[in-house]
């Protein structure tokens, strides 16, 4: 059961972790959230990403959003940034989102067949 009491426990745990880990996010995932993205299911992708990030223990990956980038036909769209390298995945569904976390973020392998160049 998720309750407010549990939030207190979680906060204390996170505060401990914060002390152990310093520094900024250098990996981020942005989901495109224009009208086009939302209609195509971007919000469901965000939820899947969130749970997969936790599953994989990737607590220092920043999950953010961008607006429409003009590729409405290929939404949902996901942008992975690692350092200076930026990769855009198109037509992302819930299954693909999980794979991207597992392969790109965990193993560092870019899934080129789903990207746009």
């Amino acid at each position, binding site marked *: *059961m*998720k*309750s*407010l009491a*549990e*939030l*207190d426990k*979680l*906060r204390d*745990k*996170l*505060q401990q972790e*914060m002390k152990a880990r310093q520094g900024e996010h250098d990996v981020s995932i942005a*989901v495109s*959230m*224009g*009208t*086009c993205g*939302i*209609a195509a299911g*971007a*919000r*469901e992708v*965000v*939820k899947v990403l*969130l*749970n997969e*990030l*936790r599953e994989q223990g*990737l*607590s220092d*990956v*920043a*999950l*953010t*959003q961008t*607006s*429409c980038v*003009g590729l409405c036909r290929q939404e949902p769209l996901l942008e992975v940034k690692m350092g200076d390298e930026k990769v855009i995945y198109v037509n992302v569904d819930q299954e693909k989102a999980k794979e991207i976390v597992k392969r790109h973020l965990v193993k560092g392998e870019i899934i080129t067949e789903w990207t746009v160049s």
Partner: protein
Amino acid sequence: MEDLSQHLLDLSFNSLAAGCTDLQICIREDLKSNILEFIVRDNGHGIDQEDIEKVLDPFFTTKENARVGLGISLLKEAVERCGGIFKIDSLPRIGTCVQAGFPRDHMDRAPLGDMTGTIISLITAGGDMEMVYHHEFNRKQFYFSTEELKLSLEGISIQTTAVLVWLEEYLSKEIKALRRGKDEKFGRAG
């Protein structure tokens, strides 16, 4: 758009794009008076008087890199499909308020959908924005505020994955509980 929570997300993203720092989402459902209505109110930069009529036009947008602005017109269409009411009020530099009301039992009314997902997506997009979510169902209430959550987080970011995962489970539990038993009264007839 499949459901109303997607429209709400879209409206809220407009607010974010308008530089909003305080967002209010209020939903009211009442079976007795057969109504489902929501209001999104922000303190963004507002819409000019001359543009306010035009936002209903799907081919109007003020965004520089876009040629269409479908969001508002899609919502208006969803409202009018079931004979509801739609209203948009805005004052430049003060903010914007969008209001939609539906006959709750209308066949063409889209379901409310996943409000939890909408709130979570909004928080990942605008960590600095404060949001109040107020949901009334048959006079029962649920209230959530990012400001209060941030206070109890004592400096831990609201955008931390673990916090968002907690929030997702918390919100979906609370919203489900609020809306549970919605058909009880009718189901027990006889």
